[in-house]
């Protein structure tokens, strides 16, 4: 299943993450968090190395990766956009904001723009419901976003 070629140095770092958790199979989720921080996503090759290091089957690693929405097997854009679709944001119009992002970027949820600049995803409640609807781009949180603001927000990343 391997298709991405990872640089040797990164592989070494990944193995260090595994060692930090004593190569224990029960620490798989912590290891995956560490690996995703390292690579930005979890391609098949990374999963194979982790399976090898922790002495569990690749199928088991794959099963866990696909179960949890936090883990992604696709690379994210340089500026990952997340629209909160929690209840508070939903009732304050998050859907319209999402539609506007989709329209302007011309991508669907889960996709990355052709130039790799933005990726679009939804999440459930970042806990800033007072500012609903909420959009996060990377570490930045935008509150009380309306469909009209979308263009302006995106232009900050020009």
């Amino acid at each position: 299943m391997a298709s991405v070629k990872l640089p040797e140095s990164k592989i070494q770092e990944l193995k260090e993450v595994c060692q930090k958790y004593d190569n224990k199979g029960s620490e798989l989720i912590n290891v995956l968090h560490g690996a995703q921080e390292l690579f930005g996503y979890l391609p098949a090759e990374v999963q194979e190395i982790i399976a090898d290091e922790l002495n569990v089957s690749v199928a088991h690693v794959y099963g866990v990766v696909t179960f949890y929405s936090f883990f992604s097997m696709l690379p994210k854009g340089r500026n990952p956009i997340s629209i909160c679709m929690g209840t508070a944001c939903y009732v304050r119009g998050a859907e319209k904001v999402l539609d506007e992002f989709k329209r302007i970027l011309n991508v669907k949820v889960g996709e990355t723009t052709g130039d790799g600049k933005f990726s679009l995803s939804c999440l459930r409640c970042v806990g800033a419901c007072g500012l609903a609807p909420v959009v996060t781009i990377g570490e930045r949180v935008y509150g009380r976003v309306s469909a009209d603001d979308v263009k302006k927000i995106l232009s900050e990343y020009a």
Partner: protein
Amino acid sequence: MGKYKSHILVCAGTGCRASDCEGIVSNLESALEENNLNEDVQVVRTGCFGFCEKGPVVKMVPDNTFYVEVTPDDAGELVLEHLVKGRKVERLLYIDPDTKERISDSKHMGFYKKQYRIALRNCGFIDPENIDEYIARDGYAAMGKILESMTPEEATAIIKESGLRGRGGGGFPTGLKWEFTRKAQADKKYVVCNADEGDPGAFMDRSILEGDPHSVLEAMAICGFCIGADTGLIYIRAEYPLAINRLKTAINQAREYGLIGKDILGTGFNFDVEIRLGAGAFVCGEETALIHSMEGLRGEPTVKPPFPAEKGYNGKPTNVNNVETFANIPPIILKGSKWFSEIGTEKSKGTKVFALAGKVNNVGLIEVPMGITLREVIFDIGGGIKGGKKFKAVQTGGPSGGCLTEKHLDIPIDYENLLQCGSMMGSGGMIVMDEDDCMVSVAKFYLDFTVEESCGKCAPCRIGNKRLYEMLDKISLGKSSEEDLGMLRNLANVIKDTSLCGLGQTSPNPVLSTMDNFHEEYLAHVADGKCPAGQCKALMHYIIDSHLCVGCTLCNRVCPVDAISGEKKTPHVIDSSICIKCGACLEKCKFGAISVQ
């Protein structure tokens, strides 16, 4: 708070951080320096004040002046006027919406008047990254009292007598759970704190962990002593980076002070705490799924019994409690079970924290005594409905709960009453909806969530909810008949009765409660092909009234799909085959010529 004469408390919860509270802090600090006040006045980043609607909030101590909607640019004026000249900055004070008076002390605000803070006692008062401030407000005193003068049985008895019930949703008596785990025989036991907070639109647990992390650590240690465990695990969502960081800081500080770790306070009691990250799966809030997730597996629930109290993490007896449940423990130990049990209703004691959100004026985090009515919460504390619209429904209990309506507003809130009305307490999400919200859409929204979050282990939940969603979708497209409503109800009941875990057993609640309370609205969709709230796009048509339209062309320019045509100064028309029903034209038209039908 030591050597300083006064303090400026700045809310640094997730919400206010998004509104640049860091900028406020740094500008305040430089303004203090310019005025040579930095030796006397300290700026403190606190946890959430609760009044997120008016954030960022800045509070002056000791005179308790409460400034709202502060921006970094206001910092200089606050220091110069308030601190140097001793005058309040009137324009940043909260304005009472009824009397239009400016209020400077939060005690007199409608938002705070009816609140009673136990679990949130320290949020917004202390610097959560400084253990000394927690200790100064009786922190770790409850643990000290127990370790030095009580047996595990005596301490458990206090919790039992207090009547405290689990705040994670189920409402199981906490003392009883502790007793079960204590009585289980094993060489190793665990205390687990459930900080998964999966209910979308709820942020109680996050705010407690961000604002007062030590209260949870202290309570976990107390629990460890009572049940005979030496290890605590906190399972927290990876989506809460700030809470995770504050917890890590708190754990390190508590270790340094010898308040957790080996031989705590020289009593020979060992207890240490570790953090485990969740990875975005709602079902992992369910305790058996949570335990499997901590074991590095897919977070799929297993049948109970065996309960975690018998066989939990790594097969060992495990006591799982919610964050808010833990936050109540230290005050109960210090003030006694009688004090706690006098608050609330007959079967639900103490207070409950709610995350009040949606279409209310005062969105925020509130803590109220059990037995308060929904009306008091929504109208007195929440300040009523946004934009003067009409109240329609309030959703409690998240995806497991239901929508309550006008007729439920005066029922005292407690576990039993909410269940009886077809909703539930849940973890404390409370979403207010107004006349513009379509109840079919709301039910569909929750079902969409459940379908995505079902772990897929059992058929009724995996397949049934998907079918339920499709049926609702059909209704919102106007393609259903009245018979379908009967089938919808039938299927909902089957899913409830036959699902393995709490997720499937409660997922039809949003459907059933909206069908019960808003039957007419469902009928309007299926029988008349109309969505009374005007939310179901397929049932809407945008029309321009040719008598009112002056041909200003404004709508034409905003329409994203060029569905509007017409010459300047002549009435325009909308081509409904192109229109995507975005509503942009309606908002822009100054002559009220566009309407939805």
